[in-house]
């Protein structure tokens, strides 16, 4: 790697006596990982990894899906025992027997999948494991509430200590996780893909929070697949490929450089695709209304159509009815009115099995809940919807050999990183699980393809691949509908964009509409008004609207972005 900003990591890079000792007025901690190796059976997830996190530094980890980032962090946090290697805190070797030890040493972690107890309040979640008590072990939640308010005020979190966690939006849940770490005086905070589930505006807020934490002396290990964010926040970037550190980079490195270092080959960050040649409009949705079980009208009179050979992207901030819209098509929603027609056949009122049989391929938003059966093998998951028919079954029996061959071929084709097709899907890294779902859905001939957040949690290389596959499906003449909260993704693959806000469509615009216009529409402005607006600046270039959620008016909100409410 002879590039200017990249340096191949030497084993002794920047080690030596700790730069700064801990002092009372400015807590700082230096963290060193030496030769960390972690095996899962025959799989080498981490291979002699060296990493140094300097005090007060934001250190990003970049790597493909399954590269071993989460595993490394779980070792650092005491959840996994390393097979080899050691951890040093302020130059002294430590031996973490469990997360308790890591927390005592000043390490806090916000996991990729949140570790909050949904039925507990914020205060109970924060107190757990670190309880303030009165005499006799009686809980002193008042003390915890006070601490939460203190931290909340300091960083502008706006978290109500008495709210039930399950009622909170993901962005706020994440702050609760950060509070959990701060209450325990974490001096190193690990954030494992914190932005994967956030709206663009929540991401901007998180980036502000990280800057404040850093200003207070907390070091941060940041994991993300979004190169733009990584470049915006990092002091130093370490790249991991297949369990090994392959190099470090400065944040000034270009996105393309980072991407190729990560994947090991050149990645084209812009998709080259032919213009769409839309054919017959075979998928039509007319005046669709969906009512949720709690009585809220979540989709309110939505009409659109998708032509053969065209990608329609449904953009919008999470929770504006997109999920329910796709579920209604699949027959997963109970209270649906209006009409959904595929090649002239009405889908409303049909069972899921009938809808799938009609040729609908579906990638659900939450793969672990709706897309996969965790304990089943990869091979079994690949045929979940086809196990009972030829060529995978004959009569009542399944044909294991055919199923296995099929799985091997798809694992190869979709580049699923695994030790074998007999591994349980639950042990795959997040991104590889997503590839299994895609492989299954795209391996039969379809009359309609719907994907919700198809690239959530995927690395750049996989995103490139998935986008190509979606375009291939389009060019085969399948109508494609994508639901995405990522404006980058929408801009990349959409031929037309429908923006959804509070259950209604704000308009359907061409795929090359500017991010600003889309952002304003996502905040509830009609297409015409949005186009008439002057251009605005976005703080971190992550795009998307700010000020969607009235619960957290941060000081940084720019009035120009506050939708149409002037």
């Amino acid at each position, binding site marked *: 790697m002879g590039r200017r900003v990249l340096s191949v990591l030497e084993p002794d890079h920047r080690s030596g006596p700790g730069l700064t000792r801990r002092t009372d007025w400015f807590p700082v901690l230096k963290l060193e990982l030496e030769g960390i190796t972690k095996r899962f059976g025959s799989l080498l997830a981490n291979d002699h990894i060296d990493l140094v996190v300097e005090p007060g530094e934001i250190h990003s980890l970049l790597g493909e899906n399954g590269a071993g980032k989460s595993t490394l962090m*779980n070792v650092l*946090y005491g*959840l*996994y025992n390393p097979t080899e290697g050691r951890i040093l805190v302020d130059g002294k070797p430590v031996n973490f027997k*469990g*997360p*308790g*030890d890591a*927390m005592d040493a000043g390490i806090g*972690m916000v*996991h990729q999948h949140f*570790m*909050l*107890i*949904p*039925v*507990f309040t914020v205060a*109970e979640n924060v*107190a*757990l*494991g*670190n*309880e303030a*008590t009165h005499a*006799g*072990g*009686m*809980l002193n939640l008042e003390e915890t509430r006070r601490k939460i308010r203190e931290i909340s005020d300091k960083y502008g979190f706006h978290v109500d200590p008495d709210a039930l966690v399950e009622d909170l*939006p993901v962005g706020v849940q994440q702050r609760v996780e950060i509070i*959990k770490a701060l209450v325990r005086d974490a001096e190193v905070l690990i954030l494992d893909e914190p932005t994967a589930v956030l709206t663009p505006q929540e991401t901007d807020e998180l980036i502000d929070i990280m800057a404040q934490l850093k200003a207070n002396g907390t070091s941060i290990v940041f994991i993300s697949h979004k190169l733009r964010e990584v470049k915006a926040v990092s002091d130093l970037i370490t790249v991991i490929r297949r369990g090994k550190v392959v190099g470090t980079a400065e944040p000034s490195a270009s996105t393309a450089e980072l991407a190729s270092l990560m994947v090991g080959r050149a990645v084209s960050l812009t998709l080259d695709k032919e213009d769409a040649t839309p054919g017959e409009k075979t998928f039509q949705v007319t005046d669709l209304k969906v*009512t*949720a*079980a*709690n*009585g*809220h*009208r*979540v989709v*309110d009179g939505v009409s659109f159509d998708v032509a053969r050979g065209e990608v329609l992207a449904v953009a919008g901030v*999470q*929770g*504006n*009815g997109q*999920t*329910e819209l796709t579920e209604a098509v699949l027959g997963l929603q109970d*209270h649906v009115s209006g009409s959904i027609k595929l090649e002239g056949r009405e889908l409303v009122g049909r069972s899921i099995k009938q809808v799938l049989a009609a040729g609908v391929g579906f990638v659900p*938003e*939450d793969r672990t809940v709706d897309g996969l059966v965790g304990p089943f093998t990869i091979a079994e998951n690949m045929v979940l919807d086809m196990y009972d028919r030829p060529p995978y079954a004959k009569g009542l029996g399944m044909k294991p050999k055919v199923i296995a061959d099929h799985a091997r071929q798809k694992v190869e084709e979709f580049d699923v990183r695994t030790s074998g097709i007999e591994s349980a899907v639950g042990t795959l890294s997040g991104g590889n699980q997503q590839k299994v779902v895609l492989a299954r859905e795209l391996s039969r001939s379809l009359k309609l393809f719907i994907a919700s957040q198809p690239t959530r949690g995927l690395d750049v290389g996989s995103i490139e691949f998935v986008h190509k596959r979606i375009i291939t499906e389009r060019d085969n003449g399948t109508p494609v509908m994508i639901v995405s909260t990522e404006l980058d993704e929408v801009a990349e693959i959409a031929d037309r964009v429908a923006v959804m806000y*509070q*259950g209604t469509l704000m308009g359907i615009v061409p795929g090359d509409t500017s991010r600003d216009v889309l952002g304003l529409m996502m*905040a*509830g402005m009609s297409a015409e008004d949005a186009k008439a607006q002057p251009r605005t600046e976005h703080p971190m270039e992550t795009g998307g609207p700010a*000020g*969607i*959620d*009235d619960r957290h008016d941060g000081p940084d909100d720019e009035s120009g972005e506050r*939708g149409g*409410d002037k």
Partner: protein
Amino acid sequence: MSAPVTSPQGQAPELDTVRDWKNPIIYAIFAVVGLVGFAFNAPGTTATFDISAGRDAVQLAPVVVPTVPVGWACALILIAIAVFSFLQTQAGRKDPRWMPIAYAIVFVVGFLVWVVGGANKTDVSLVGLLAGSVTMAVPLIFGSLSGVLSERVGVINIAIEGQLLAGAFAAAVAASISGNVYVGMLAAAIAGVLVSVVLAVFSIKYLVNQIIVGVVLNVLVSGLTGFLFSTVLSRDSATWNSPPSLPVIQIPVLEHIPILGGILFRQTIVGYLMYAAVIITYIGLFHTKWGLRVRSVGEHPKAADTLGIKVNFTRAHNVMLGGAVAGLGGSFFTLVSVSQFTKDMTAGQGYIALAAMIFGRWNPIWAFFAALLFGFATNLRFVLSILGTPVPGEFLAMLPYVVTIVAVAGLVGRSRPPAANGTPYIKG
């Protein structure tokens, strides 16, 4: 992910009403039962309820109620509630929370007046009825607390039946040999713990399906105690199976309070321990550090683990604690109600305790009331068969359960078990 649409401008999102007609229909059906039974078929006599026992400080006159007007009044109230519920549902509103409880009370009053008025002896002691219910409920309450303690950490406890039976057996034998009831109680608790140790080892360490382990344990304990009973205990019951009884402890002054005194303050030590156990478990679970950790382990063990809480250790601990509680409850059979052990004497009470726990939504206080309701149902059957009603005994025995199931399953609403209940925790 069906997050409701939030509106930044503050206007309420449009509400579409999803009407649920279940409650009004259930109310209406039972209102018709009340109308036909309590009102049209009122026996025309009077029913007498004695509300003072001889020892009470203030002697209150018995309540004599005419069956016809009371029957009609109850039926009309039931109808009124049903109509009100229909209107509420029509308007898309939810019933107030007190309604199922009020409805159940009115129905039970109507039923009691009707059934006592129609009996050969139209005079019943209300205190006796209620005190008897508490007595019947004691092992159920201990059993359901065992269930709560175990399932709150995520281990399904079907073995309550076995724990009760082991406790009953151990109490009888230990108290007989030592001649000391308290040794019997201690032995009962230990026997309960031993049963739980097996449950804990197999379900937590060896990851065997928890329901299967529980059922197997019940069969095992039943077989083992039954075998020992017929081979050892019944050969020489003077040595092995004639435990002394626990004395009734009357709390001075308090026991003389009308109605309540007889119910609450004339108990054996096991009865008082029961109240203490309910309160301690409740406070422990919801207001202490211990309880917070216990509940976290049952809801999201992985999250608890990331906070340094030892999941499987906490689980094993609690399952054993539950065993001690249920074992102690088992001693009630042999040291209080019957002074000897007989084969399978718990007769499925452990399963009823499990039902009480579920109906009580894994909450000690609600499980306590659910168990009382079952105790009341069981006791009512005995009292009524003594009074001699014309209603067939089997039907009487069944009716309170029907009411309970309808009221709880139908009207109280969905209850949510701890999220990780039944799922073993394997560290990654």
